[in-house]
């Protein structure tokens, strides 16, 4: 049994990350279609279809994570979706196509594929698994709710900072001439 604070915080973090991802995919559909095309896993019309459906799926999973009764299903969906992304990244890393934009973050945060992404997605899948496990039915009082809010905020800010660091990494490498 997982404590409800842990499971709820994981679900919230995943939901926010999914919403953020869906929002930049919906705002620049052509860019996203190009990114999918770069992965060279889908052909012609399938690319356009994926570009339209993936953000919608992300939003639906994010919403499911927020509804208490659907949280487990949402978490399983999130884990599967993340596993799909991880697989796509792993295949392209294996092919040696490192220099394509990973498409994981919004505009201005373009970065090439790297094994660090596999670690990041692994951690997110781990959080999805935690959110999918049955939680103990403890009633949350004021401090419990505060803990959820504070930990979600801290994790999300640190997540954004890590994304930024990973984006800066290739720029720093090119500066130091390696």
């Amino acid at each position, binding site marked *: 049994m997982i404590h409800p604070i842990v499971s709820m915080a994981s679900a919230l973090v995943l939901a926010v990350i999914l919403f953020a991802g869906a929002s930049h995919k919906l705002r620049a559909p052509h860019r996203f279609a190009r990114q999918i095309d770069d992965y060279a896993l889908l052909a012609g019309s399938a690319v356009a279809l994926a570009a339209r459906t993936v953000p919608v799926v992300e939003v639906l999973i994010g919403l499911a994570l927020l509804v208490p009764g659907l949280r487990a299903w949402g978490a399983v969906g999130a884990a599967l979706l993340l596993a799909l992304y991880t697989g796509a990244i792993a295949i392209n890393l294996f092919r040696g196509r490192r220099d394509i934009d990973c498409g994981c973050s919004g505009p*201005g945060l373009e970065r090439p594929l790297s094994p660090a992404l596999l670690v990041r997605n692994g951690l997110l899948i781990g959080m999805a698994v935690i959110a999918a496990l049955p939680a103990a039915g403890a009633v949350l009082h004021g401090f419990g709710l505060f*803990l959820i809010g504070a930990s979600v905020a*801290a994790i999300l*800010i*640190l997540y954004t*900072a890590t994304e*930024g660091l990973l984006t*800066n990494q290739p720029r720093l490498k090119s500066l130091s001439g390696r």
Partner: protein
Amino acid sequence: MDVVVISQILLWIVVIALAFVVMALVRQIGVLHSRIAPAGALMLDKGVAVNSPAPKVTATDRHDKPVNVGYKSERGQLLFFLSPTCPICKSLLPSLRSLGRQYRRDLDVVYISDGDAHAQQAVITEHGLEEATYVVGPEIGMTYQIGKLPYAVLIDADGVLRAKGLVNNREHLESLFEAQSMGVGSLQEYMRQTPRITQ
């Protein structure tokens, strides 16, 4: 309230504040990285030679007012060639605006672009260039043989072309403004002059 609970709350606040600081630092590093982007490659010089009289052209700006380029006047001119489809040009506009304000006693900045009117309007609205001298048309670009963007040409008050070049970042732009205020077109020219000054 229990002391432990209070300490927990305070610690969480500190953790979140520190996380914010880390994120802000990462963003600042990102900005620094984009500022020290590699300079444009050296290109074969064509068009008007530096230190020769600038060709005189008259064009009309967006409001159909005539714009004289290359004539003698009270102030020098900085011609900035841009295009709404060129992202680097747009990224330079805020720097150019602030530099233009700083040097407004010595220099008039003239924005020269070409192409689709809607796209021009979008750039003008986005960067607050309603008041600026903004020419849309090929005449000046053709006369000065501008092949690459963003390109800047500095003409002094006597109508002499003092400096020109591809400008890829704020440093390139600043060097042009600096050239105006020091009266030297390039580092090479400055080095040639200094022996005379010191003698």
